[in-house]
């Protein structure tokens, strides 16, 4: 059919943004922003039993400059909030945020003077994974959903700029 027949089996034609998105979705570099007990479940899901590496999201980078997927794992307190926003703003685009656990999603059962009621009041969130803590299967499901989301992105979606919350 068409030009592919002329070129033979050695060449595949595709759209640039599709192949770029394909590369991005299978090579997430995590920034694990771990503040609480969900971190234990994160270790489980990152370890060999559930193995995030199967989905191309194996390598945590402990510098936000080198990461493109921020995993906010655990309760965010008001004291911690400026640090979270600062780290988010330090990440190079494109970047995604995965809210891991019910505390990060909504504050969970901590409705008090100390706790941020959901990190989406501070930074844009792509995927919410509720649970206290979420099962590893839920995390993997969230990651797959994020991959689907990334696959449908366009170049014009980026850059999205700094967090809308000012003050850092």
């Amino acid at each position: 059919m068409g030009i592919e027949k002329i070129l033979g089996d050695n060449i595949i034609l595709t759209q640039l943004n599709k192949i770029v998105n394909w590369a991005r979705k299978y090579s997430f570099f995590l920034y694990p922003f771990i503040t609480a007990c969900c971190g234990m479940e994160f270790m489980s899901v990152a370890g060999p039993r559930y193995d995030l590496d199967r989905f191309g999201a194996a390598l945590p980078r402990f510098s936000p400059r080198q990461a493109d997927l921020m995993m906010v794992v655990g309760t965010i307190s008001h004291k911690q909030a400026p640090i979270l926003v600062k780290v988010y703003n330090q990440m190079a685009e494109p970047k995604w945020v995965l809210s891991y656990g019910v505390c990060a999603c909504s504050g969970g059962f901590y409705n008090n003077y100390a706790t941020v009621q959901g990190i989406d009041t501070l930074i844009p969130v792509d995927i919410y994974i509720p649970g206290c803590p979420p099962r590893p299967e839920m995390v993997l499901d969230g990651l797959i959903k994020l991959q689907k989301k990334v696959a449908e992105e366009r170049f014009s979606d980026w850059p999205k700029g700094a967090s809308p919350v000012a003050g850092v």
Partner: protein
Amino acid sequence: MSEDGVTIKRLRDKFPDSIIESHSFRGDDTVIIKKEDIVEVCRFLRDEKGLAYNFMMDLTVVDYLNIREEPRFEVVYHLYSLEHNHRVRIKAPVSESDCSIDSIISLWIGANWFEREAYDMYGIIFKGHPDIRRILLYKEFKGHPLRKDYPVQGRQPLIGPKN
């Protein structure tokens, strides 16, 4: 109410004027003392042979707002003797108007962060503490959140909405 333990007897002999009240329940001794004597009582409990309360396990505060009239607060000390496997609870009432008590850092250096936490959450000033400032909350925070008159919905975020 069982018979008074050895700790209460020794304290009553040594500090008859300091003790407001005491009770002993199933081996748990509790002594309520005047706050002016807290350091001397604790020193006696730590250094006296036969008592040797060498471990300060916990220091906390109770707010009795709307439960009783003054004194509003009570600072609670839990001491433990590793030598004798004894425990004692010392309580010192603190009024709202004079919201302070002497620090016991000179006896147990580990009390430092406990006293800072008690100050952070209840606003009790520990006189003689070398560095009495907030330990858990941020310095911009106004008020003391575990006081019963702190509003339940009181939110003071550093950044972002008050949700």
